[in-house]
């Protein structure tokens, strides 16, 4: 039984891992293969900081909230284990900042210690009058555990013609190349990775006017700190933009003067 996972970002690899965990003893003939034209450090996931935090609103999509909770609880359960180090998994606390009061997010009871910010804490962030504090998780995926093929899959047919029985499509932003999907659009992001080991909290600002992730954010990893705040719907460019770089740097330094 050949199962091919197409895509080796966080979704492809974790899906492959789940299938392996659940079926390798039940289906002795299981052959699990991962196909991707890009592997770490060139996947979309590698650009991400790795912070577990869903969008602010689930727009009534309760199934997503269930998936979010499952993910968080699964990761939390692995915290004390040896696997945590391999997964690059650790707890991190931090701030979500707003210029006006907002309703609590659907994930408020999923993360740990969710609360509103006190006036004294808000003094740290001039221009923001409301916010949340909570403890969440960071996932700096580095592990590869499955046999993989460095290859661009051009069609599902190609897989079946080779004798693959089941295809799992985890192709992320370029899924449209295998099967057109007008609802799928790139949300281009650019980040700057800096050395700022004194930063121990994530800080994510929100500006309803500009939309999600178009407002500065700072997310400390175990080795470097990610500065971001760019989200361009429909932009396929994978090149660094000097203007975006400037925007990120200026906005993040205003948010955290210590970065200078």
């Amino acid at each position, binding site marked *: 039984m050949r199962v091919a996972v197409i895509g080796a970002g966080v979704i492809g690899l974790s899906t492959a891992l789940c299938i392996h965990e659940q079926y390798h003893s039940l289906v002795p003939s299981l052959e699990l293969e991962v196909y991707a034209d890009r592997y770490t450090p060139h996947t979309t996931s590698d650009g991400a900081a790795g912070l577990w935090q869903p969008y602010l609103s689930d727009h009534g999509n309760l199934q997503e909230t269930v998936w979010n909770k499952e993910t968080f609880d699964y990761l939390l359960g692995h*915290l*004390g*284990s*040896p696997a*945590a*180090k391999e997964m*690059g998994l*650790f*707890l*991190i*606390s931090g701030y979500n900042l707003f210029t006006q009061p907002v309703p609590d997010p659907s994930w408020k009871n999923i993360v*740990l*210690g969710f*609360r509103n*910010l*006190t006036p*004294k*804490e808000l*003094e*740290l962030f001039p221009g923001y009058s409301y916010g949340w*504090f909570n*403890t969440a998780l*960071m996932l700096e995926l580095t592990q590869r555990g499955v046999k993989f093929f460095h290859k661009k899959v051009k069609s599902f047919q190609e897989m079946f013609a080779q004798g693959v029985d089941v295809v799992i499509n985890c192709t992320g932003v370029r899924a449209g190349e295998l099967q057109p999907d007008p609802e799928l659009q790139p949300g281009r992001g650019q980040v700057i990775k800096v050395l*700022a*080991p*004194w*930063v*121990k*909290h994530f800080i994510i600002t929100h500006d309803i006017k500009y939309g999600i992730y178009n407002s500065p954010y700072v997310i*400390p990893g*175990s*080795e470097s700190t990610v500065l971001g705040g760019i989200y361009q719907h429909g932009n396929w460019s994978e090149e660094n933009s000097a203007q975006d770089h400037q925007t990120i740097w200026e906005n993040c330094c205003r948010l955290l*003067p*210590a970065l*200078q």
Partner: protein
Amino acid sequence: MAAPKVAVVGAGVIGLSTALCIAETCPSCSVTVLSDQFSPNTTSDVAAGMLIPHTYPGTPIHVQKQWFKETFTYLFAISNSAEASEAGIHLISGWQVFKNTPKEELPFWSDVVLGFRPMSEAELQKFPQYRFGRAFTTLKCDCPPYLLWLEKRLKAIGVQMYTRKVADLWELHSEYNIVVNCAGIGAHQLVGDEKLFPIRGQVLKVHAPWVKNFIRDGDGSTYIYPGIDRVTLGGTREKDSWSVSPDPGTTKDIFDRCCSLEPSLRGAQDIKVKVGLRPSRWCVRLQREVLSRGGVKLLVVHNYGHGSGGFSMHRGTAKEAAHLVEECIAALQGSLSRAKL
């Protein structure tokens, strides 16, 4: 009188911050720091530098709260400025966990730190042996950076610093008008204070950059304090032990205790062991004294005996010491004018 000459003995966090406060409040003073040790070899360099106060039995609580508040406010402003990383000051959040419910309702500092609140059931699940806990955000002063930053600021305003072992305060009477004693544990010998005793602390400083939150056992025996480059794992509180040599059995014990609080520490690298002697006392000795010998007077301001609370109280006690120095100057000028009459 000509510019009063003030000598500050000691170059740990207390000595340096006191010298800075004196220079700030008395710009006409000539301030000199004398110490046999400077960073990275002071007791302060061993400490994690967490702003979590320890209660002195002999000092009124409202005074301790004032000292802590002054210190917290001062450092909070630096942490929010462009100088934060050079000064080694950063915010850190975490948990203080208790196996038994603590006797006091709320510690005196609970409204000074940020976001102080009881831990939720979900948070406590991470600490199965503990029944109760508190979460808050506080500040950490990393050393050597903080001490080096203080030294830099002192140099910038003309304060001189010399490596010199002062064996007796009287050595200084001909060169200085006022001596400020910030000798920490050194005061035991320097001024013969029998009420000052060491509480030996051994710590490990490890590389574990994925640890972003502090964890402290409420009984103070075990703690994990992430700093800029290293995580401080502690510790011990050995009363009256003067040994500054690391003990290997203790190292293993500290490591095991911290790993049971935070299992991922098993992967910590490059473990360095350090020992410091907390200069402990019933209360901080923060007072003026006039020493007399053969008709000659020496004006002294004492500021030592901060025990486990040096970082938490340093700015508050430094400011008070600076006020006492001002009083000494007024007294000197008073006696000078009387002499002129």
